[in-house]
């Protein structure tokens, strides 16, 4: 049989002895936690941080809008896994589970290492004990990856997967806040561009599974140190990103961040936050593009509340800005259309509505607007207004 197997599959990796668990080193910084089911390695470290703004918790609810917002920073736990592969099937093991919790003036990271695949039950039990204390999970892409894998491990060990009041996956909000201004929204990229921290000499993600396989095979823990460090950095980046994400709520930030925050607040039904964020977005605009975009959103906000006294001047500002050259940036005729609608339906002044419509039709800064849907709609509007005014036949 052995010969047939070898012939079938010539040139496999040279066999290596597999170390016994007892002979393996305990990786640096870890301690063994023994319980009836076996051993788990745990590493706990503290990282000084300023206390979380009280508003930040509210902001978190706004970013990821769960039904019940966290009540205190200690409700939160960040999670990040290191796994033996990227597939989400039952054979992918989470060999290192990193948790981070927020304490007074610091963040505590708790890292659980699986000493051997046969000891998964006590390992999961230890993780579960810590998670049970916290109602709110914070991850970066945890909905797509970490949580399904971790839950699968519990199911596979016939244990109940942990449940949470809220799962705050920061990947979505990060994209909303930064995808327009940054080339990448991966965690390490944001760590560099948003948090201003560079990771030098970080172990590449693709090497991580092999490091664990090697540890099991030869029992030497030094290769794991970098993986543990990588995991810790990911956890801290997740927590710091969370702090950073809610900053526009309490402190002046870049205009696109205020705008994104306003949109998320709108989606979460938090009207009281929207207006302030939009005003901040207009105030912090660095150029015409940012200014126009926030004006448009602010006008829309007022219009939704039927506050035309505030919306109309904003549209007029937009129109004059566009006609004075900012049209290079936005050729969107929406403000004209809004003004025309306002004139027709609110002021009942079709003549004025027609004037805005005509201006919209003339507004063609690039000189290249063909019969786009915009133009077609404008012509319809103009013709309808003309008919209403009884000024004769269709001109077009």
């Amino acid at each position, binding site marked *: 049989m*052995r010969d047939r197997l070898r012939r079938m599959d010539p040139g496999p990796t040279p066999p290596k002895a597999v170390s016994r668990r007892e002979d393996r080193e305990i990786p640096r910084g870890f301690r063994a936690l023994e319980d009836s089911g076996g051993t788990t390695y745990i590493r706990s470290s503290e990282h000084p941080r300023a206390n979380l703004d009280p508003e930040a918790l509210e902001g978190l609810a706004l970013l990821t809008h769960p039904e019940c917002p966290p009540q205190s920073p200690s409700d939160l736990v960040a999670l990040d896994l290191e796994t033996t*592969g990227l597939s989400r099937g039952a054979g992918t093991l989470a060999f290192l589970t990193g948790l981070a919790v927020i304490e007074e003036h610091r963040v505590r990271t708790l890292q659980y290492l699986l000493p051997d695949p046969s000891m998964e039950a006590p390992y999961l039990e230890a993780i579960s004990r810590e998670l049970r204390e916290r109602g709110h999970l914070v991850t970066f892409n945890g909905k797509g990856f970490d949580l399904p894998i971790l839950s699968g491990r519990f199911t596979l060990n016939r244990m109940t997967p942990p449940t949470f009041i809220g799962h705050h996956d920061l990947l979505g909000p990060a994209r909303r806040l930064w995808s327009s201004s940054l080339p990448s929204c991966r965690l390490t990229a944001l760590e560099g561009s948003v948090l201003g921290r560079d990771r030098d000499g970080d172990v590449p993600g693709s090497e991580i599974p092999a490091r664990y*396989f090697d540890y099991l095979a030869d029992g030497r823990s030094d290769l794991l140190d970098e993986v543990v460090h990588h995991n810790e950095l990911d956890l801290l980046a997740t927590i710091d990103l969370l702090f950073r994400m809610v900053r526009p709520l309490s402190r002046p930030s870049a205009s696109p961040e205020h705008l994104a925050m306003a949109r998320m607040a709108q989606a979460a039904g938090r009207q009281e936050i929207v207006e302030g964020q939009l005003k901040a977005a207009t105030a912090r605009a660095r150029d015409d593009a940012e200014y126009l975009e926030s004006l448009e959103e602010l006008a829309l906000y007022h219009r939704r509340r039927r506050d035309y006294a505030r919306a109309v001047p904003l549209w007029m500002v937009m129109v004059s800005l566009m006609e004075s050259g900012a049209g290079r940036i936005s050729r969107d005729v929406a403000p004209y259309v809004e003004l025309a609608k306002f004139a027709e339906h609110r002021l009942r002044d079709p003549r004025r509505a027609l004037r805005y419509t005509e201006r919209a039709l003339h507004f063609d800064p690039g000189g290249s607007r063909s019969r786009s849907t915009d133009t077609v709609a404008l012509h319809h509007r103009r013709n309808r207004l003309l008919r209403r005014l009884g000024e004769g036949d269709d001109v077009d």
Partner: protein
Amino acid sequence: MNLDQLIDTLRTDKEFGERVTGWVEVAPRAPAYGDLPAVDERLASAMKRRGILQPYSHQAQAMEGLLRGENVVVATPTASGKSLCYIIPVLEEILRKPEARALFLYPTKALAQDQRTEIGEWIEAIGGGIASFTYDGDTPASSRRSIRRAGQIVITNPDMLHTGILPHHTKWVHLFENLEYVIIDELHTYRGVFGSHVANVLRRLQRIARFYGSSPRFAASSATIANPRELAESLVGEPFRLVDESGAPRSRKHTVLYNPPVVNRELGIRRSSVLEARDILRQLLGNGIQTIAFVRSRIQSEVLLSYLRESLPRVNIRGYRGGYLPAQRREIERGLRTGEIRGVVATNALELGVDIGSLDAAVLVGYPGTIASALQQMGRAGRGDAPSLAVMVASSSPLDQHLVTHPDYFFDRSPERGLVQPDNLHIRVSHLKCAAFELPFTAEETEGDSDLREILEYLSETRILHPSDDRWHWMTEGFPAQDISLRSASTGNVVIVDRTEPEPRVIGEVDEFSAPMLLHEEAIYIHEAVQYQVEELDLEERKAFVRRIDVNYYTDATFAADTAVLDVLRRDDRELASRFFGEIRLTAQPTTFKKIRFGTHENLGWGRIHLPPREMHTTAYWMTLEPTLTARFSPGEVESGLMGLRNLMLEVAPLFLSCDRRDLYAVAQIRSPFTGHPTLYLCDAYPGGVGLGEALFGLEAELQRTCLQVVRECVCTDGCPSCIGAPAEVGASARRIATRILARLTGDLRCLD
């Protein structure tokens, strides 16, 4: 003329009559009923509403067995209402216990779609409330989660089970904790390599079900094969109750065996079966009789389709074969059901229970290789109570000639056995990796299975698994199911790209294994009767680039094969010829191709194929001719005889193996490096072998006797493609020597010289 009138005309036609070697008319048969078992009132009344007052006897038996908790396999003819046998018990179970789950497996996505419609109709008939879904590669990601949680009936295929469900079983907890039924439809398709894979997938399924504490019962349905129970039992590994007496009514059916006339007696050449079939099809289709023609190859299907379209330009005739894209197939199936399409030229791609409605007549161009396939193809004609006609036109291959000249053998022979070899080492190891990925192996599982333990230890040494505490854990980055295709040795298909127009477009695909034969440079690839010439075959990128062309020929490739013996597993040394079974290394290389003219089928020239050889380790049966046997022949005679035997045995062997000719390679060595004597190998064409070589080792005597019969009874003088091959290829003495060798080996020395 209607079909009855046409049958009368054919019966009295002198020329047609001379070519008919067998004509069997089966009288209509009245239905036999059984009692409906006690089921939920909603089901009983739904059956009445749908016109089923009483089930047929076989349906009643199957339902009773399943309701009692037995595994049941139903093997009754096409259109006898097999699906009802399991749909009713499954619905009964779910009505009684809503958390119960059933998994339906169909060999193809198309069949799954068909059946989903039928199951949906039943669910509607009982007033709804049961969630049934198809789950396959086309299922949108957005609905997968709810199917996993709430699907009471999940309809899928073995490939999806293999890559999409089992490796993700933790997401299917509801299904696996409550799995009551597994339905295996079209059981007979799970044989050979595919069946051996599926047997392993089913073992993985049972292993996962056990883990979650369920033990489903299995219901299988099969077309007519010799051993439905044995096949079901070896696929599932559990005992089955067999239901094979059909109670369904049958209409009058004519089955005709037809042998094309000899056009050159000396060379033993008969008129081409394609041309002969064309003439018969012209009469059928010309009279408005909806007919299906089954051909043996993709090339034949396109050639015959071109002929028919030319002579019957106004009749809607289509092709149907592997390589057509799914949307096109669905459209053709629909056209056949509505009757809009009057004729179809199909390969065995249409053999499965794809729903195309009832047709009046079936014409088989050549024996499809197994009795089971022949019955299945012929069964396409004659659903309902109208009479039907099935004609099998023999080709000049030895097998066809043997059958057509022994009609009793054809009509009396029971269909073949479906064989699987779940323990093929390649296949088993592949699936053990998948199984280890799904759940660690435990020492308990290896008890009484020393092979399993050795394999697990081997996989641990190569660091694919990690042994610890009497368990073996998957400890590799990959996702093993992704690398294993259930359908063939290779994982990918070669896509055919037409670059006639500036915008290239994909017109079809061919499996990687066949690609060198069909898509070598300069090959003519025919698709929907349009010819394309292959300009470039890129096996690495899995692409073939073709351009439309209009020529009067098609191409046919040949290849050379060689073997080296690696290990002898069984041997039987004898005086005249020793036989062996063992492992070999097989090297196969396409060498040349012929250009064959349409219509006359004459050879217009040839070309070389420049493609690298493919190598595989497989198993084989081989036979060595000892000096005591060969001493009386000259070396040239031995060579001729050996070549002749090689061709003959390769053609005849499938008769005993229920496999296709292409599942075997035959290699002749005049002086084998292994034995030093003339040696003939018949090799399994799948890596590791799927049991064909071993079966031949046991069947040698029977194989030799039939070969002798074929070569003796052939109408030619010095050999022809219907027995040992063309004399120009194998030598003028080949027929004589091969006959004498076989006569000595079988001890049947009648009329020698």
